[in-house]
């Protein structure tokens, strides 16, 4: 398994676009910077600034879309270049293959959020919007790591769809719809969709954040877990059919 994961990371070195997609991590910190400069506010509470820069649309929209594209890219390229046949000949267990892809997605999500965290701290300090506060920066980093890990698990359904398809159209459309659904359900029922459940766990204790429903971490974890298990089982069936 570890060798498979190592091989996946070695493949990433040749994929320029995967690394270029990381630039999307700078979008919200730069937006927060321009927003606070536009309204002319300085000395903002660091948490207030980070809520804009890292805790809002990055976990709701940007990270899920980027991870969805990554899942599709990782699996589609191997179908396109017929690498899968060779992997099945080795032989590699389909679930080993699936989890090695998931390991890449997990690593990428954490890296993405770490970049967002660093960019948020730097944007706040260099624009004089916030002052340096070690404990707030550590809190931001901790929350970003949580977002990275939980979003990777919340994207398991998209990874399963990508694994069951030869093309990329359906997984990309599913990514867009899945992300949109997660965002909309934040206002309706937070415990139906893994992405909105992730928001309950991560944002529930951020000062100043009011959730539309009562916070229940167990229900949120259960939602992410159920979707994850069902997706993994579906991917297992789809990949076994293909071998």
């Amino acid at each position, binding site marked *: 398994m570890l060798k498979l994961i190592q091989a996946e990371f070695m493949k990433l070195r040749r994929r320029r*676009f995967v690394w*270029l*997609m990381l630039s*999307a991590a700078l*979008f919200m910190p730069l*937006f927060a910077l321009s*927003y606070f400069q*536009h309204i002319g506010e300085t000395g903002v509470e660091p948490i207030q600034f980070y809520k804009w820069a890292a805790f809002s*649309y990055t976990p709701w*929209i*940007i990270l899920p*879309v*980027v991870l969805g*594209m990554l899942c*599709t*890219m990782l699996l589609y390229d191997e179908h*396109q270049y017929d690498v899968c046949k060779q992997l099945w000949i080795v032989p590699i267990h389909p679930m080993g293959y699936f989890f090695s892809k998931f390991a890449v997605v997990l690593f990428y999500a954490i890296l993405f959020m770490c970049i967002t965290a660093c960019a948020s701290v730097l944007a706040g300090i260099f624009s004089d919007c916030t002052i340096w506060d070690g404990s707030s920066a550590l809190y931001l980093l901790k929350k970003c790591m949580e977002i990275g890990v939980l979003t990777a698990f919340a994207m398991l359904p998209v990874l399963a769809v990508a694994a069951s398809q030869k*093309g990329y*159209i*359906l997984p*990309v*459309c599913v990514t*867009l*719809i899945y*992300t*949109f*659904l997660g*965002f*909309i*359900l934040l*206002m*309706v029922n937070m415990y139906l969709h893994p992405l909105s459940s992730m928001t309950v766990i991560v944002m529930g204790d951020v000062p100043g954040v009011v959730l539309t429903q009562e916070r229940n971490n167990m229900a949120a974890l259960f939602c992410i877990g159920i979707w994850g298990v069902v997706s993994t089982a579906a991917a297992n069936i789809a990949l076994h059919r293909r071998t």
Partner: protein
Amino acid sequence: MKQLLWAEKQKLRRSKLIWITMFATIMVAVIVFAQGQFVFHGSRYVDNAGWFMTAAQSLATFFVFPAVIALFGSYMICREEQEDTMKSLRLIPVNEPKLIVAKMIITLAFSILIYLLLFLITVSVEAILHNESLSIGLVLEFLKIYFLDGVGVFLAIAPMIVLVARVKKGYWLALVFTELYSFAGLFTSMSGVLKVFYPITAVFHVSGYYDASVIQIILSGITLLLCGGIAVMLLVSFQKKHSNDNRDGFRHK
């Protein structure tokens, strides 16, 4: 050109793309309807006549449709390289830039069609829920908004699609940036000036979703035409590069 358009239409008939995007459109309507169940001041959003038609087109434009349309356009362009049919097309010989123009025209038609499909779904739901409050004038007004949204969104993302045609392997990146580009409209809509000039929100000025003065509508229209102009310029430079490559190829032979 007529033949190219016919060929593209035939190719699409065999592809699952149309069905998948129709599914995406239906899902957008379902999701927005789910949002309409949110209770605010004692009544659900969806209980207000016209809310569903208004919310569906704006949310779809900010979150889903630009990326779906870019996906459609870029898929049509990139599939020739991916499925190795470009070589056969070059042998005919087909003028590559003309082929891309044909694909762009199909993408424009597709953009209008998915907005009209969304309109059809939303107007049907509104007719069931608020039959008495729905006037012909209101329906026609929304039909105009949806139609112009389709045209405008295509113009706004046309440069992205042409860029994909040039950097063929970069369609993943183009999709991510189209999504960011469309959803950034949420923020530009907060500023009175930016929302006139930012292409995604400019679409709403032109379509009539935003209340705007004549000057604002003209400025937004110019912005969208500029986007279309940039796409044409990119296509022209693409054509020049293509003819230079062909000339160099002949000289080499």
